[in-house]
């Protein structure tokens, strides 16, 4: 096709390496069907921020974006209305010079990202769960903390939901404009880089997240591209995992609770409690119907701030003892270790009769001896 490009090394260099291709490519494109220059970023020409080559992030970037580069940048096909273009320019004109650099500084980043691409409306290529995707963005490995992701983590809350809501409704340009006006530093997290519309398909005219808009959390068919066998298998396995041991991690931590003599088991989410007292009250409530003598009857009212010791007292006062099975498979008495440690190692709970539990500690030791 085109002659090999000379003397260009990929990566590592400050100059936009691949941009030198622009010259010869220009020829091709111009001799071809006449590439229309598109302002990809929606900025005016001289502010062509890095949609051309991205060199090493860690390098300070003087902008030597050749204007040639702008010609190559194939931006949105022409369905954008003129007002919108000028809107963008209005937004960004003041910031053009700053824009030339690699987005090292937060505020520039924010605006830059905003003005980049209009949010596409509800055609297939746009889906607003990208918004969710963004909230997971970690800071880049190459950064030395300059990136703003984490910094603006806190403000992302509301605006993000605004975006989401609007996307589900009627987004397009309006969202971005409103975002921009609402804050000087909108988080990058709100950037929704959905597909630009194409020619001949009048989906986008600023106002349409039309009827074909996917719901905010819509899953795209066939994405991510994994075989259905794998998808189905892993779905089943993870269900099984949750059954067998409450997987530690953020989110719910459900463990089974059994009680001697009860006809069925219960499950509790350990994360909803923060102390042993809370757990024990909840369990009492759950299993009260099964006890002959109510566990809670000995509890003195007005007892606040029960520590772990008090929890043990509570148990010892009643017929029942709360025990748990830890990661190693050993049965232990609840209440010996700090709550956080307990949560991490608890796999299962059991409410035992006091008489059974008296020998618990020695029995547990024996068991672990046998297993070694």
């Amino acid at each position, binding site marked *: 096709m085109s002659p090999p490009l000379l003397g260009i090394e990929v990566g590592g260099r400050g100059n936009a390496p691949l941009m030198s*291709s622009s010259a010869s490519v220009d020829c091709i494109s111009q001799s071809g069907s006449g590439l229309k220059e598109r302002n990809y970023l929606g900025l005016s020409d001289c502010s062509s921020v890095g*949609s051309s080559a991205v060199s090493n*992030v860690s390098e300070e970037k003087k902008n030597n974006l050749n204007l040639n580069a702008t010609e190559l940048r194939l931006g949105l096909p022409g369905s954008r209305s003129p007002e919108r273009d000028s809107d963008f320019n209005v937004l960004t004109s003041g910031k053009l010079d700053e824009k030339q650099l690699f987005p090292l500084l937060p505020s520039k980043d924010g605006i830059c990202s905003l003005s980049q691409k209009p949010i596409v409306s509800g055609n297939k*290529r746009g889906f607003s769960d990208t918004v969710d995707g963004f909230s997971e963005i*970690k800071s880049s490995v190459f950064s030395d903390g300059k*990136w703003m992701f984490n910094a603006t983590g806190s403000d992302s809350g509301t605006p993000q939901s605004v975006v989401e809501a609007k996307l589900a409704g009627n987004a397009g340009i309006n969202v971005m404009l409103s975002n921009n006006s609402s804050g000087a530093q909108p988080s990058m997290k709100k950037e929704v880089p959905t597909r*630009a519309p194409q020619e001949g398909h009048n989906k986008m005219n600023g106002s349409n997240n039309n009827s074909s808009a996917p719901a905010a959390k819509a899953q795209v068919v066939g994405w991510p591209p994994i075989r259905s066998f794998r998808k189905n298998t892993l779905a089943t396995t993870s269900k099984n995992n949750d059954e067998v041991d409450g997987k530690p991690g953020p989110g719910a931590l459900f463990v089974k609770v059994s009680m001697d003599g009860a006809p069925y088991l219960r499950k509790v989410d350990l994360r909803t409690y923060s102390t042993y007292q809370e757990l024990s009250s909840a369990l009492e409530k759950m299993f009260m119907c099964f006890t002959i003598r109510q566990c809670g009857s000995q509890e003195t009212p007005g007892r606040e701030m029960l520590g772990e010791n008090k929890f043990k007292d509570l148990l010892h006062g009643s017929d029942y003892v709360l025990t748990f099975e830890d990661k190693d498979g050993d049965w232990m008495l609840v209440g010996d270790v700090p709550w956080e440690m307990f949560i991490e190692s608890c796999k299962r709970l059991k409410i035992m009769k006091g008489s059974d539990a008296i020998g618990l500690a020695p029995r547990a030791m024996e068991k672990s001896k046998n297993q070694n």
Partner: protein
Amino acid sequence: MRSFQSMLNYFPEEVLEHVFDFLTSHRDRNAVSLVCKSWYTVERFSREKVFIGNCYAISPERLISRFPRVRSLTLKGKPHFADFNLVPHDWGGYVQPWIESMAKGGVNLEELRLKRMLVSDESLELLANFFPNFKSLVLVSCEGFTTDGLAAIASNCRFLRELDLQEIEVEDRRGQWLSCFPDSCTSLVSLNFACLKGEVNLASLERLVARCRNLRSLRVNHAVPIDALQRILMQAPQLVDLGTGSFGQDPDSDSYNKLETAMQQCTSITSLSGFLEVVTARCLPAVYPICRHLTSLNLSYAAGIYSDELVKLIRHCNKLERLLVLDTIGDKGLGVVASTCKELQELRVFPSDIHGGNAAVTEEGLVAISAGCPKLNSILYFCQQMTNAALIMVAKNCPNFIRFRLATLNPTIPDAVTMQPLDEGFGAIVKSCKGLKRLSVSGLLTDQLFLYIGIYAEQLEMLSIAFAGDSDKGMFYVLNGCKKLKKLEIRDSPFGDVALLEDMGKYETMRSLWMSSCEVTLGACKTLAQKMPRLNVEIINDSDQMEASDDDKQRVEKMYLYRTLVGPRKDAPDFVWTL
């Protein structure tokens, strides 16, 4: 020149045939058969292995008439995107007509390898009963049969060496198919039923393994518990490839010790997979002794292994050349891989939670791998995010990629740091990896990337595009630039009629083109079909979106076209229109 030519003409055919025996690659043989008529003739009578990349490109009859001595047939059916639910189940790709023709034609079939084809129990029965020397059945991503079909194979193929089922949903008829292997069957070399969901008779399995002394590869399914596995291993210490089945369910210490002992006996295992269910931490150390010999490790179904256990395991595997994992391994885990597995050539990282949960890998992991594993040549990487800088670094570190497939969980995500499209990153990959044959791109991408691909990806044979590009130019750059392109599949991208019709002759040089949710209209497809009689242009209208009373301007939701020598297929279902 004349005399040399005449010398060649007197070359005895037997010698030619002998020389051609050294040619195993079908591409080489194809090339050889184009040299001259006599070479064509010699080659066609001597070819035993035939590869057909698209079962509708040719008919079984023509296959048999050209290659009467065929013994091994590889067939591929549905388009690749069928793997991702984009193609209705009954679109086609039936193996039945092939088996029938070969049975009628007296072909001495020994090996059948199918991918994305519809295989019925009837087909399997035919296979088992009409080909007395049948030895090897490999099915990948197929469907349509049950364990009854497997029973037929087990019962009747007296010399069966290989039964390999990969990623198939097989309906379980509870017929104890495994018990159908007769006691006289001792020829098995490879048995892989890891994907089966049903139960198997453990006693039969153990006996089978005991009598097949040549068994090298055994991959069992989840229904085989650890104690059975341990007994099997004691019978088959010669195994080279092991799929462990569930490997779960906390065994008692006795079983565990026996397992350890059994594993230590298996000094030849170089390939390991399985761990299909929950794995208690205490069981994994049993496999540490074999880890240091492993060259291939597939933990991509091991959702029950937590990342710290995973990492511990991998630290023992310093000879690894091929690794498949879930993204629960994390970037840190990939760092461990990078520092441990210096021989790594192929890596696949699958998503554990397709809704983009907490477990995920990012560009960091990829860069770490590229830095630590210089021999890397094939990657499939599902990640949360990516950056151009990372891809550029990867391209610099690993110029040897043959396959590079990246899928961001959010298909249009831009560079996570600069918010730019990922054009430059992927561009760096195609520029640096001069031998790149297969590429899948994702993330925010513009026509610029396709320009790079067209310019640099000279060896590219397969390209997958999703949610990318801005205009017809993108597709045009690719079709125009990639001279060796064989398969192009595009979804949800703004490429339309202009690009489609720009160079119609190109499609005859390719195996197939898939376009779904693009901008192609019915009229353009009709034009193409009309002008190119040796292409089948199929429209898949599975959701009744299109009216038969054609408005040529309406967009086509799914189009699949492929070159063919046999015209429109006769088994197309109602919703498939061949124009």
